[in-house]
């Protein structure tokens, strides 16, 4: 899902320390990385991948149609517009600490242009044995039929690892991004999983705060036919100090562990109290095997 045989990956910030090593890991996982971009470094090669000054050139020369970002946080907004304007419609924004006002602009632009964008602060996207865009450690993943969507990067690895150990592979693993505003909401990822013929069950890895899970519950009730389980991290996390009253108005009572679990339970989503329970769940639902 999202990433397939026709995906031609561009790496932005490829000459940086992280961009370079992660490109190596992506190539080792047989991802079709066709180009890199670092302004001013056009003409270089990184792990044999040709580097360009601009996304436009990279697209023109290599037919890149998806991009993963390892650019510094203050440069993400600029790179995002550049990438969208060059015609790319799948973007993975790995960096953390991108200013929220930038993310809001990017989210609106993505919606306007029909772009699917993950992040910021995402480990990216991985389709086992096909490729990955981002930083997910490949050894934990196996091909299979369970879709995982996670707000947390490391917890997506944890769940994939547990599933793999229990004989249940993954169709696609999606890191949504851990920021208060993410470029693509959970509901939208669930829609993609519901439509994806290779996905037969879905695990949602959520956490306290925000209202992604509450909105997802409503969506699941109306539109999702596949079995869904959910884990919510932060059951015992101390409540943050409240800042002003506007949050209460925007979110009402949303955001708590209890509220999210109740919302999911009400629409028939199975609640996992600990990641390890995902192992039992896939067995119970017959989702093991490739």
């Amino acid at each position, binding site marked *: 899902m999202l990433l397939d045989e026709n995906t031609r990956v561009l790496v932005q910030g490829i000459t940086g320390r992280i961009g370079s090593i992660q490109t190596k890991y992506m190539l080792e996982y047989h991802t079709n990385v066709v180009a890199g971009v670092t302004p001013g470094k056009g003409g270089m090669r990184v792990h044999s991948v040709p580097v360009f000054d601009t996304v436009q050139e990279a697209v023109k020369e290599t037919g890149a149609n998806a991009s993963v970002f390892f650019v510094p946080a203050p440069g993400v907004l600029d790179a995002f517009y550049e990438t969208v304007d060059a015609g790319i419609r799948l973007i993975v924004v790995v960096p953390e600490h991108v200013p929220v006002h930038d993310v809001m602009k990017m989210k609106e632009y993505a919606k306007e242009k029909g772009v699917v964008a993950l992040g910021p602060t995402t480990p990216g996207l991985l389709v086992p044995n096909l490729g990955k865009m981002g*930083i*997910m450690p490949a*050894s934990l993943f196996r091909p299979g039929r369970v879709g995982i969507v996670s707000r947390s990067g490391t917890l997506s690895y*944890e769940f994939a690892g547990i599933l793999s150990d229990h004989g249940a592979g993954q169709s696609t693993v999606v890191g949504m991004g851990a920021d208060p*505003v993410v470029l693509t909401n959970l509901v939208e990822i669930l829609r993609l999983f519901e439509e994806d013929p290779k996905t037969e069950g879905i695990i949602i890895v959520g956490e306290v705060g925000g209202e*992604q899970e509450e909105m997802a519950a409503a969506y699941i009730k109306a539109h999702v036919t596949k079995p869904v389980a959910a884990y919510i991290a932060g059951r015992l996390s*101390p409540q943050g100090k409240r800042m002003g009253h506007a949050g209460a*108005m925007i979110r009402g009572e949303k955001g708590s562990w209890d509220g999210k679990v109740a919302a999911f339970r009400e629409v028939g989503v199975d609640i996992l109290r600990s990641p390890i329970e995902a192992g039992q769940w896939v067995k119970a639902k017959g989702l093991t095997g490739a």
Partner: protein
Amino acid sequence: MRLQEYEAKEIFKTYGIPVPEFRVVRDPEAALRAGLDLGLPVMLKAQVLVGGRGKAGGVLKCETPEEVLTFSEELFRREIKGLVPKELMVEKACEVEKEIYLGCAVDGYEGRPVLILSKRGGVDVEDVFRRHPEKVNKFPLPIDGGFLPYQARGLSKELGFSGEGMLSISKVIYLLVKVFYEYEALLAEINPLGVSSGGDSICLDAVLEVDNAALKRIRANLPNPATRIENPIERKGREIGVTYVDLDGDIGIISSGAGLGMCSMDIIGDRLRPANFLETGGGITEELLYRCMELVTMKPNLRAIFINVYGGINPIHEGAKGVVRFIREKGLKIPIVAKALGNRQEETWEILRSGGVEVVEETDTESAVKRLCEILERGRS
């Protein structure tokens, strides 16, 4: 980062939002001088970064010099939701006829700014939100500025104001939105905005929370967020670039990623008592994990440390070196259990084991916590 009320008011004032005259003081004598200087009556307001300060007794009105002295002595001793104020605002008391609520915030789900207005504001505003949602107006704002005065006028009309009141409130709404954009705020709030019988508006309490990720490009002198943290370990965490939250247990936690950190805390919390929450973010180095060990062990009476990290973006083998170096240098004796998976995991395990760390090879946190419990049980028996 949330600013103190007086910092927010100073900023609002430079934008032209009317605020009462005030002084910031650090002892009762200064409070008295400020009170006499401003002219009584005055309000004393504890400067603490928590909500519900008024209900918790952090705001007192003084009619006489004696009250200023006694009440300020009282406030400098009073704990408000766990925090004792170091500074008080002494503010000229204002006569107002109405109190309304104005807030400008990021709607995280929709990913856009939203303006929230209520014709009833003040300490009970959340009750209004809950019980009378029809009294509250929510107005989505354009993503990148472009909010115009006429829109503010329309909104202040909708709040039921006309004439001078409509003009003064719409001016405040417009300027509050301007502050919100120019300070890249997560929240800019005036609650209450007092409106006098003549239609003048005045900002009686102010909240401004800015995005730490945007601090460097905001054209203003803002304090270093680390200086805002009361707890010394949390402050130190902020300084080295990790998120540390102090808890009251005795099992130290180091994790990469907030989700994995919360998950570790939840699982440990079912059987033991976490001493902290610590997440490294994506910048692990040998030095960083050395400092994380330092942070976690600042807590007295620690029984054990639980490390839970993934090698995705993080070079966990580098981090492992920092852990082991710390154990050796400090001669740390308490049990340390580590789950470390992903890129270069075998190398990581080897390093950790060389420092006496108990490495769990299972993929799930549950098993690792179980191992920790076993070790602690064994130690006790």
